[in-house]
C-alpha cells in the first residue's frame, strides 16, 4: 500500500513539474505538449487508441505464450541432451549478438505487414531470456540433491521432473517476468517497421502528423499496458507457484 502511494506521488510530481516546465519555457505544442493536453488527446482519441491497443495486446500475448513455450522446450533440450548443449548454446549466444531491431525489416519482408511479423518479433526478443533463465535454473540444481537422488536410484527423467524442474521454477519465473516486459518492445518495433495497426503504428502516424499529444497518449497507453501485463504475470506466477518460490 505504501509502495502504491509512493508511486502515485512520484508520477503526480513528474506531471506537475512537466506542466510547470511547459508553461515557463512555452515550447510549441508539437515539441512538448502539456500533460493536460495529452489527457485531452487521450480522451478525444480513446476509441482509436483502444482499437490499436487491442491489436498490440493480441500480438504481445500470442508472442509471449509461444516464446515462453519455445524457450522452455529449448532449455529442457539443452539440459537433457549434451550434444544439443554443445551445438545450440554457442548458436543461441551468437544469435543474441544481432540486434532484433536489425532483423525487423527482414521479418516484415518475409512475413508481411500483418500480425505475424510482430508476433515473431516478440518471440525473438523473449526467447533467449526465457531459455537462458530456465536452463540456468535446471543446470544449477544443487549437487547434493542429485547425489541424494542417486542413492535413491532415481531415473534421469524423474530427477528432471521432481528435482531439477521444481528447483528451476524461481529462475524460470524471473525469465518469464523479463519476457513480459520485453514482449511489448518486440511487438512495437515490428509495428514501427511496417504495419497498419497497433500502438506502434499509431505512434508513427501521430508523429508524422505532428500530433505530439496523441503520440504521448499512445506512449502512456503502451507503458500502462506493459506495467499491467508485468504485474498480472508476476501475480499469477506468485499465486500458482508459491510453494516453489518461498523457503
Amino acid at each position, binding site marked *: 500500500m505504501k509502495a502504491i502511494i509512493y508511486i502515485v506521488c512520484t508520477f503526480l510530481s513528474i506531471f506537475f513539474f512537466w506542466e510547470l516546465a511547459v508553461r515557463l519555457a512555452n515550447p510549441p505544442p508539437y515539441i512538448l505538449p502539456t500533460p493536460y493536453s495529452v489527457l485531452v488527446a487521450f480522451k478525444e482519441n480513446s476509441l482509436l487508441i483502444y482499437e490499436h491497443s487491442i491489436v498490440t495486446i493480441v500480438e504481445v500475448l500470442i508472442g509471449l505464450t509461444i516464446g515462453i513455450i519455445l524457450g522452455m522446450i529449448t532449455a529442457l533440450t539443452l539440459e537433457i541432451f549434451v550434444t544439443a548443449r554443445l551445438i545450440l548454446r554457442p548458436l543461441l549466444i551468437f544469435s543474441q549478438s544481432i540486434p532484433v531491431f536489425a532483423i525487423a525489416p527482414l521479418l516484415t519482408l518475409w512475413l508481411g505487414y500483418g500480425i505475424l511479423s510482430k508476433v515473431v518479433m516478440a518471440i525473438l526478443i523473449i526467447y533467449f531470456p526465457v531459455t537462458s533463465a530456465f536452463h540456468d535454473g535446471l543446470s544449477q540444481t544443487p549437487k547434493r540433491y542429485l*547425489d541424494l537422488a542417486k542413492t*535413491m*536410484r532415481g531415473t534421469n527423467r*524423474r*530427477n528432471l521432473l*521432481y528435482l531439477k524442474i521444481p528447483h528451476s521454477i524461481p529462475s524460470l519465473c524471473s525469465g518469464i517476468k523479463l519476457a513480459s516486459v520485453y514482449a511489448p518492445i518486440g511487438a512495437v518495433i515490428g509495428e514501427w517497421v511496417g504495419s497498419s495497426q497497433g500502438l506502434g503504428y499509431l505512434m508513427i502516424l501521430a508523429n508524422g502528423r505532428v500530433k505530439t499529444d496523441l503520440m504521448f497518449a499512445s506512449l502512456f497507453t503502451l507503458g500502462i499496458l506493459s506495467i499491467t501485463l508485468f504485474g498480472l504475470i508476476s501475480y499469477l506466477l506468485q499465486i500458482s507457484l508459491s510453494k516453489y518460490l518461498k*523457503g
Partner: protein
Amino acid sequence: MMSSTSPSIELIGSVRSESEVLFGDIRLAVRANQWTCLLGASGIGKSTILRLIAGLPTHVKLDGSIKSNDHLPISNRVSYMAQNDLLIPWATVSANVSLGNKLRGEKFSPEKKLKIIEKVGLMDHKKKYPFQLSGGQRQRAALARTLMENTPIVLLDEPFGSLDSNTREEMIDLTFESLKGKTVLFVTHDPHEAARLCESIYILGRQKTTSNRSLKPPFPKTYSDKLVFDLQYSLLEKIKSNRS
C-alpha cells in the same frame, strides 16, 4: 522392498586424489546389525569414504575394493543421511519422506509412511514445509525419509552435528532405536558420539586407519556413562596425534 538381512561391508585399499594420498592404508570392516564409526578430524575426508561406498562421484580414486559378505552390489541398497538434512524445500514433510519412492516411480503404502512420520514425532507437522520446521524437526524428517527407504545399509554423515544438545540427545536415541538391525556406518568427528553408539570404531589417519577399542554392548550408552568418558578421552588423544 528389499531383503531385510543386512550385509557386512569390507573396504580395503588406498584412496588418493590426483595430487595427494588421502588415506594410505585403509581397512574397514563394517559389520551387520551394528554401528561402525569412522572417526577423524574435520576435513580429513571422512565423507569421501561414505561417497565411495554409496557409489557417488568423488574426486578420488580407490585402489582396492569395497565388498559385501553376500557379494551383492552395495550402492543400490544404501541410504544416506547427512548433517545437512537435504530436505527438498518445495515439498512438505510428507512428500519429502516418500521422495525416494517418487524418484523410483514405485507405489508405497501411505499407512507405512504415516507410521514412520508418527514414529519420528512429526504427525502434527507432516503438511509443513521444511522452512517452517526447527533444526531438530528437519533432522527428524530426514530420519523418516531414511526409514522410508528401508535399505539394509545406512550411511550417516554427522547427522547430529548441527543440533543443540537437548535435541541431539533425543535424535541420537530415536535414530539408534529406529535403525536397529541395519548395517550402519557412522561418520563423526565427535569421540563422545562414537564411544556411545558404536561397536566398532575406526580412526582415520593419512597413513593408516586404525581399529580402536570400543565398549561392550548394549548400545547406546547413556550420556553420563563413565566408560564413555574414558574412551572418549583416549579417542580424542589419538585423533589429535593422527592429525599432526
